[in-house]
């Protein structure tokens, strides 16, 4: 049985199911209890599980992420809610120096099974400190797993997998998608890490898109289809681990690829994925792998400017057309 539920509801269900299943799971963050977060994603959980398992914290991000690490080392499975992805900068030390390295530094003796839930995504007119997509930063750090759900279905399945994982996992939700609905089974399910989803099959070009950009890629693919261009759309779903094989296979078939990601383009996710493809599908490529990321500027507040900074379906389609036509802008 499937029904359509919002991404917010999918997250809520994932947490509720895992908290019912395992009493060591608990939740902490700012205004997660009565308020259920500003996005209302966690509404109702405190009623079922009580304030002892759904814990409102002071505005102390480094503090409560550090506490999650210690709790995880001693038998608990904390889920931390970081209200905006932009606050990742505040918790990098606890996340990257402590959580990510503890298992390794202890030679495998100490485990840190914790989940950091946060978000990404611009065009909400929230300006430079509430609009960033910072997943590239954590994907760079060994010891962290990184998941990027692109719909309610993935959000639920990946989060459940994250909560059961014995390692620190950072999961990024697209804050603009919380009210978007998708088909989600009634029955419990998990989505394994490291398995990309081929969302649409195609022959002419591969669109590799993450999180918020999956919708953009799908819309571009629709447009392209109406023009007779057949685009394959792949969502890696996790950056660490990364399902290189599925993507490389696809590009070997299509001979062209565009990577679309809402993080900044420079020194970010698109470069990693593009260079993996360029290396592994080298002899199959008919056209340079194209990268589309958020523009390399702080996110501007003005709607007139902000909308220019994020890849759009039209822009993706335009790049795809050029690639299929074999037109190079400046790679002469």
């Amino acid at each position: 049985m499937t029904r359509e539920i919002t991404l917010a509801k999918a997250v809520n269900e994932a947490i509720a199911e895992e908290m019912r299943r395992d009493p060591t799971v608990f939740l902490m963050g700012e205004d997660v209890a009565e308020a259920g977060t500003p996005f209302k994603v966690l509404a109702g959980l405190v009623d079922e599980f009580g304030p002892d398992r759904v814990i409102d914290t002071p505005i102390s991000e480094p503090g409560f992420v550090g506490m999650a690490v210690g709790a995880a080392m001693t038998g608990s499975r904390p889920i931390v809610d970081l209200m905006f992805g932009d606050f990742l900068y505040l918790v990098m030390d606890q996340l990257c120096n402590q959580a990510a390295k503890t298992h390794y530094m202890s030679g495998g003796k100490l485990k840190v099974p914790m989940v950091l839930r946060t978000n990404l995504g611009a065009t909400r007119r929230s300006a430079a400190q509430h609009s960033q997509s910072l997943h590239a930063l954590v994907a760079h750090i060994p010891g962290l797993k990184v998941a990027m759900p692109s719909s309610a279905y993935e959000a639920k399945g990946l989060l459940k997998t994250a909560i059961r994982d014995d390692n620190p996992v950072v999961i990024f939700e697209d804050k603009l998608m919380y009210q978007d609905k998708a088909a989600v089974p009634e029955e419990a399910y998990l989505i394994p890490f490291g398995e990309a989803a081929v969302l649409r099959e195609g022959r002419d070009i591969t669109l590799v898109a993450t999180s918020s950009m999956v919708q953009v890629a799908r819309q571009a693919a629709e447009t392209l289809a109406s023009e007779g261009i057949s685009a394959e759309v792949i969502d890696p779903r996790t950056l660490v681990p990364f399902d290189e094989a599925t993507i490389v296979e696809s590009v070997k078939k299509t001979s062209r690829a565009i990577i679309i990601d809402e993080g900044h383009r420079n020194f970010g996710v698109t470069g990693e994925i593009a260079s993996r493809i360029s290396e592994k599908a080298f002899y199959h490529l008919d056209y340079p792998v194209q990268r589309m990321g958020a523009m390399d500027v702080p996110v501007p507040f003005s709607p007139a400017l902000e909308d220019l900074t994020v890849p759009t379906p039209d822009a993706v389609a335009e790049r795809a057309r050029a690639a299929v036509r074999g037109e190079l802008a400046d790679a002469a």
Partner: protein
Amino acid sequence: MTKARTNTEDYVRMYRQMVRIRAFEDNANQLYLSAKMPGLTHMYSGQEAVAVGICEALTDEDRITSTHRGHGHCVAKGASFLEMFCELLGREEGYCRGKGGSMHIADQAHGNLGANAIVGGSMGIATGAALSAKRLGRDFVTVCFFGDGATAQGLWYEVMNMAALWRLPVIYACENNGYSEYTKTEEIAAGSLTARAEAFGIEAHKVDGQDVLAVNDLARKLVERARRGEGPFFVELDTYRYHGHHVGDINRDYYRSKDEEAAWKERRDPIVNFGKWLESEGILTAEELVAINDEIRAEAEAAVAYALDAKYPDAGEVDMHVFAGVEHALPYIDGERT
């Protein structure tokens, strides 16, 4: 109400400034409710006596740092409605050319180093400005505004320590409005805020943040002393926000009662109470108070009307101002020499 100044001009200006803040916020709220404002914003209404009482003790050379709830500080420090509304609406004529918006308004000319969307994020900046003043031998004082919720950020303790060690001319002004977002202060702050500052050897004060004269009186003394090298100081100001945490926070029964809100508005409104005092002291008549209100409201509405018609920045601005001295960032980062 303490009598802080004998200069009636100053009283009238303080009154006007408080009314200006209220008028600004009422219009901003209206813009949001009528879906004309992008994003969301945090109303300062109710806390006017804090910003005005403190900023009236400062010169244009003195600096402030502000918060997500920053319109009040911005107005109090001397900003104009027009450039503020343009900023809130993302227009080119805004203080930040529309790039900052409500949460990042800065007004360099009047010493406002900017609002900040990271809770506590400006505590280092304010303390660094004070270090700069001391090092460069300039005599400006910096006031760091923040909320009760921000006291949970570790950064504050780090910079208080350095400010105390090096006797920096900075004043930490904590506006305790009883809530951080949807949570009561007592649920997120253990012990005592003044004791936290005192533990670093910092002189701490508590004052009624609804009493503009009491705030101004204390602020003038502390600013003077900070200028003489007797800082830093900490002030906790008891106050209240009338609206929700942000403009979209409409149903708030689950975290605070309508009665509580009504009580503050009826008994402790900083503008009403100060207006009554001005009247009772014979400084302004009831008619003059009304006239001031009307004039300021008209000014605000005119500014809104102007801003709504003002131009958005050109698309070409999107990669400008990323780097000082670099016209367009995109070719620059790719190594195109300019």
